[in-house]
């Protein structure tokens, strides 16, 4: 551990060296993006596909509120804000590191070995090994929903709320990225564990889209303190719309999303480390 800390310290970039340090990743990502943009027609189809996914998710919210006024203490506008924030976080994370859940394929192809013989940290190599530009479709739907929700809702604007929205988007993306990373790490143990890890990532995303009050208490504790997706959208929505919280969701908790993101990342890093250690231990 001390050794690892020392190497992190040694690897910490100086102000001038940062661009230099990030250059390998920039070159890889640019090449990945070019490869995806190369086939216009298929890229456009892919984007339409992810727009479709976003719209389907939205339809679910719309249909529910077509039939009920309030669900879990949220009206349609509030639910739309929850939908928007969670989808922005999820689609950004999915775009950046969603490919970590294809790790079993990498392992079977022996691609993991190629990563080991390159002079870069494994996790950053995996994270930057691809970028799914097509997921911009779902992101776009979510952004539109955010704008609609914030303009139709009766928001008492303040500088603090603008900051809160920005912090929420960053933390939400970080939390979902951590889930993908943890899922990737766990898949070193269960090469066919995609079902299990999907329940963390996609299940977490589903939970993030709901009012927490529709869940029984044990699940609320799970979504707040174990897989912290309540921080992605529900808690910030309470704070932005000045809605009352409750004992499991005090409104001030909305400001703690960076802490939740940090905790999620610590757990994710541990999963990842254990996973790569296990791979080295068990062979490929």
């Amino acid at each position, binding site marked *: 551990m001390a050794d690892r800390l020392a190497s992190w310290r040694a690897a910490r970039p100086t102000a001038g060296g940062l661009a230099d340090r990030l250059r390998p990743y920039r070159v890889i990502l640019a090449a990945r993006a*070019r490869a995806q943009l190369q086939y216009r027609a298929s890229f456009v189809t892919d984007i339409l596909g992810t727009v479709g996914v976003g719209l389907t998710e939205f339809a679910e919210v719309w249909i529910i509120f077509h039939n009920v006024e309030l669900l879990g203490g949220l009206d349609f506008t509030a639910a739309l804000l929850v939908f928007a924030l969670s989808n922005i976080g999820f689609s950004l994370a999915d775009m950046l590191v969603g490919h970590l859940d294809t790790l079993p394929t990498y392992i079977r192809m*022996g691609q993991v070995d190629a990563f*080991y*013989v390159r*002079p870069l940290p494994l996790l950053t190599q995996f994270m930057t090994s691809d970028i799914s530009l097509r997921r911009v479709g779902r992101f776009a739907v979510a952004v539109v929903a955010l704008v609609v929700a914030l303009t139709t809702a009766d928001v008492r604007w303040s500088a603090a709320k603008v900051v809160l929205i920005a912090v929420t988007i960053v933390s939400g993306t970080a939390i979902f990225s951590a889930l993908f990373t943890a899922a990737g790490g766990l898949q070193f143990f269960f090469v066919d564990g995609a079902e299990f890890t999907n329940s963390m990532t996609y299940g977490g995303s589903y939970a993030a889209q709901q009012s927490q009050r529709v869940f029984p208490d044990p699940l609320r504790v799970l979504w707040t303190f174990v897989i912290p997706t309540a921080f992605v959208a529900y808690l910030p929505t309470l704070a932005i719309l000045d809605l009352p919280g409750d004992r499991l969701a005090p409104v001030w908790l909305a400001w703690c999303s960076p802490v939740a993101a940090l905790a999620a990342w610590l757990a994710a890093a541990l999963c990842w480390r254990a996973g790569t250690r296990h791979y*080295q231990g068990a062979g490929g």
Partner: protein
Amino acid sequence: MTSPPNGAAAGPIIETVDLVRDFKRTRAVDHLSVAVAAGESVGYIGANGAGKSTTIKMLTGILQPTSGLVRTCGLDPMRRRVDVARRTGVVFGQRSQLWWDLPLHESFTILAAIHRLEPGQARARIERLVDQLEMGPQLAAPVRSLSLGQRMRAEIAAALLHEPELLILDEPTIGLDVLSKQRLREFLLEERRERGTTLLLTTHDMGDIERLCGRVLVIDEGRLAFDGTLAGLARTVGARRVLVIDLAEPTGELSDIPHTAVLAVEGDGLRQRLAFDASETTAAAVLAAVSARAQVRDLAIEEPDIEDVVRRIYAASGRG
């Protein structure tokens, strides 16, 4: 970072001491102790599953040893994987390190960036390798469209971009046609002549060993079964050459030719395969003896086959 760039010059570039690696039910590498000096060219041979790939994975920091010591370029590959990666080039024959959906030149550019080569220096190195390996026409083609031979040359160029001290090739010529093998070997010889790169290669092809390797390591069930020159190996196991003789008429088995053993009789004795040890007799003497018996129409000489050599080592050590 803290180690001098030529830290390996003092000691061996590869060193293992009592290296052991266990898998669930088997011991893949069993107390392997080997030292390879910088500049050597070593063939690492053995049957499938003998422990070659496991050794390479431990040398490159992919696998943790169960016990024993492993040092690559003087470094512990588990703790200093990134530094080892900077100083070694590795090609896993069956696995690509290239980006299959990108044009080949992009793979080179990306790897140059990964190794933080200065752009001008990278361009010169890529140009030189592309020129030597005659890959110019393929540079714009996506990697997935390359032939096996073209891809293997590209893999080796990719592994050599950063001018590593040590090049590890796992089955570099497997599946290649004769001409592609030839070109690859010539390139490797030239690279070694120019830069003195240490080479460790695993192969099933005796031709690779004969052309490229000054030293042979044979591994059997994880243990070092032989360490020496190719000639020494042939002497040790008495690797035999085989004379294939086509006769004008069906002839009985040529069982009494001195210093030979009949391996096979085909077509009622029209073709016979005689094995002989080069240290005991010569092809000419065998041919003369056969000619005294029957009329020879055609002949061919087969060199020792690596599988045969390995089998004989196993037989000599009491295994099957």
